């Protein structure tokens, strides 16, 4: 189980490769990996978005992402989880969040991955501020799952 907060852009595919390489003990044990990547779009609610700043409450973010991972591991039979979440200044097409779940069977990994993103969206203290044209505004709500 790993939770990483990143202030710089990251490559989710590279991160997955690195994470799996660092866990040779999982080789041959997992049959299912479910992954979600949330990426910054260049439009939202009909407006062009030039840039985004993602504020967070660092210690609380870390704590709640770890709690969500632990809860997922209690609800489903998981071998490993990985959460990477950006903060700071984000450009369109930048990955914002990566969630990955490894399990023996897909009946565990699929609902666990969904659980991670829905709980993260509800509980993890991040706030998006979008720049559209000359103006910045706080995003007031997330898209429902």
């Amino acid at each position, binding site marked *: 189980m790993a939770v990483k907060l990143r202030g710089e852009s990251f490559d989710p595919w590279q991160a997955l490769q690195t994470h799996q390489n660092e866990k040779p003990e999982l080789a041959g044990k997992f049959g299912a990996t479910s992954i979600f990547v949330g990426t910054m779009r260049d439009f939202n609610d009909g407006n062009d978005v030039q840039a985004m700043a993602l504020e967070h409450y660092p210690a609380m973010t870390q704590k709640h992402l770890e709690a969500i991972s632990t809860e997922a591991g209690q609800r489903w039979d998981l071998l490993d989880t990985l959460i990477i979440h950006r903060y700071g200044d984000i450009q369109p097409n930048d990955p914002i*969040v990566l969630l990955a779940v490894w399990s023996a069977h897909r009946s565990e990994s699929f609902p666990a991955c969904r659980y991670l993103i829905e709980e993260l969206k*509800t509980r993890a203290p991040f*706030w*998006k501020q979008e720049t559209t044209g000359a103006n910045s505004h706080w995003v007031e709500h997330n898209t429902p799952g």
Partner: protein
Amino acid sequence: MSITVKFFASLRETIGKSDVSLDADNITTAADVWRIATDNHDPVGNMLIAINMEYASLDEMVKDGDEVAFFPPVTGG
């Protein structure tokens, strides 16, 4: 008693403060923390409260050394 107060995102801008250290004796609940730290600003409708990084409500008790945070609905992921 001593309370660390934090405001985030739009609430930080509304209140005009990010961090406040309170040292007062007339504090029982998170509502008291809000009232003193914001100089009696009306609570914001949909704001969230965390005491020591766990979600809480305005009527929850605080104790010496607690960290109390106020922020708008979260929009991560």
